[in-house]
């Protein structure tokens, strides 16, 4: 009897997850129908209008989708030269040594810093540096946001990649050494081919994190609603436009913001599921 109750409790608590997951999709879809009915789905996605004047309201998601994809892509490019060395450092060169544990702790702490504090640091320190270096006129913009985003995703990409680099069987590496390969050659011809799919999935998951990052980006991107034409201009991402405007929105604007939320949710969901499937596959090998 008690066993039955226990099993029912287990199942019930497991049902909470699909309830929340399904509920998110359902609520976002229902509350965004207003915008999609008004503008049409593809029209909304590919329009760069953002007119808030009452009566002439017109909303489109394109500048924000562009902003999100652009910052994420840039962040990914900028994060690779740091996350890959860290992964090699902790997973190959100094594997198991104290210094590797130390670097692991450093990156873990880096991952623990709240988004809003990254934003503050970027706003008060980095922005000045960027202005000094003449990267952008106000210091804030796509490039600044992407740079901070890159720092934020380094820990995720690095720790996951290191996990797969560690999994490369040492007899394979020893075989290559026995054939006279140097360490760099072993890394390039044994470690990377063996751990490649895992490292790839690590970066997919890092992309997933960067797509939805809100506070730091909101504080640094400059918050303008037009299409970004160069990397130095200001812009908005899907997350930052919601963070900025959701509070005072109602009616059609609220529905449009929720529609942007739905799109963001779908994009991150697809990226994350792909990443997780790849990672499960890579772990099994």
């Amino acid at each position, binding site marked *: 009897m*008690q*066993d039955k*109750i*226990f099993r029912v409790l*287990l*199942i019930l*608590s*497991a049902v909470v*997850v*699909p309830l*929340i997951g399904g*509920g*998110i999709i359902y*609520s*976002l879809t229902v509350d965004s129908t207003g915008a999609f009915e008004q503008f049409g789905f593809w029209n909304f996605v590919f329009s760069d209008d953002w007119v808030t004047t009452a009566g002439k309201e017109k909303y489109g998601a394109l500048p924000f989708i562009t902003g999100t994809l652009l910052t994420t892509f840039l962040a990914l490019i900028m994060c690779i030269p*740091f*996350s890959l*060395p*860290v992964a*090699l*450092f902790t997973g190959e060169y100094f594997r198991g040594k104290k210094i590797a544990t130390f670097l692991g*702790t*450093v*990156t*873990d*702490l*880096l991952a*623990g*810093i*709240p*988004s*809003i*504090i*990254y934003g*503050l*640091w970027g706003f*008060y320190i980095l922005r000045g540096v960027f202005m000094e270096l003449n990267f952008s006129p106000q210091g804030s913009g796509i490039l600044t946001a992407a740079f901070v985003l890159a*720092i934020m995703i*380094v820990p995720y990409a*690095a720790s996951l990649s290191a996990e797969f680099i560690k999994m490369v069987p040492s007899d394979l590496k020893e075989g290559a050494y026995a054939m006279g390969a*140097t360490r*760099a*050659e072993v890394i390039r*011809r044994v470690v990377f081919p063996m751990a490649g799919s895992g490292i790839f999935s690590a970066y997919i998951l890092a992309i997933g*994190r960067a*797509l*939805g990052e*809100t*506070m730091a980006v909101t504080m640094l991107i400059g918050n303008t609603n037009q299409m970004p034409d160069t990397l130095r201009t200001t812009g908005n991402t899907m*997350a930052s436009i919601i*963070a900025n405007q*959701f*509070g005072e929105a109602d009616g059609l604007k609220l529905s449009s913001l*929720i529609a942007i939320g739905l799109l*963001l*949710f779908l994009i*991150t*969901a697809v990226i*994350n599921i792909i990443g*997780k499937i790849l990672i499960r596959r890579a772990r099994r090998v």
Partner: protein
Amino acid sequence: MIQVNNIRLRIFRSRLLYVTVCVFSGLTAIPLLAILGEVLIKGWKQLGWAFFTEATPNAYKAMMAASAGEPIPGGIANGIIGTFLMLIIAAVVAIPVGIFCGICLSEYRKSWFATFVSYLTDLLQGTPSIIIGIITYIWVVVPMKGYSALAGSVALFIMMLPLIIRSTEETMKVLPETLKEAGLALGGSYWRVMLQVMLPSALGSIFTGILLAISRVVGETAPLMFTALGGAAISWNVTKPMSAVPLLIWEFFNDPNLQSLIWGASLFLLTFVLLLNLLAKRIAKKWKI
């Protein structure tokens, strides 16, 4: 093909890679030091007894103090109370549900249902925090006809749940099957074996997971902006809007009059989060299965 003849070049390349890896790995530590240093240097001056016991001043008071050349009065007590209240409510619900769900996923790991829930957990974990904010707004704030700390707790609960599920599931999966079999063979009923044999032996890593989950959500701002909203007074009423430390930082960031409080609040938040992280690491090391 590997060029065999040019051995010097190959060794040079190998060393070059080694040096590059070391240099770039070292560079990664710079942001951490820069952020810690910045927050510490600017923040510690603001810390004092009043900073932790008094509520946030309004913009007018702050302006008057600033124009008189005095330090801004008040502190972040309203945020600290709000953060802890919301965290406790969220944790009290998320911990049992998460642990039970994790046990379920590990026990029925071969069923399609568990695989499905497991993928959904990953999905939920990857959901941007701002989406959690929107969804809690739709689910709690709209029906309750107002912002409340309770809504903030719901948002934090949704964020914590997948983290706790994951850590429980992963720990339970690596426990030896023989442990359960031994318990059952001694005549223990299934629920007794699960809760009094399996769970206690997994408790160390689950506790680590809980600490990490708390440290992840304590600094979250986005899900609280449209749920708990914030408030300047110290409040214990969870059905009313309430502030939290990250929300206060956001408020200070947007209000030029209050800007000098920003670093003290950040120092408090950062110290709390990093200490939780380090504590979790220590416990994980000590209670390794």
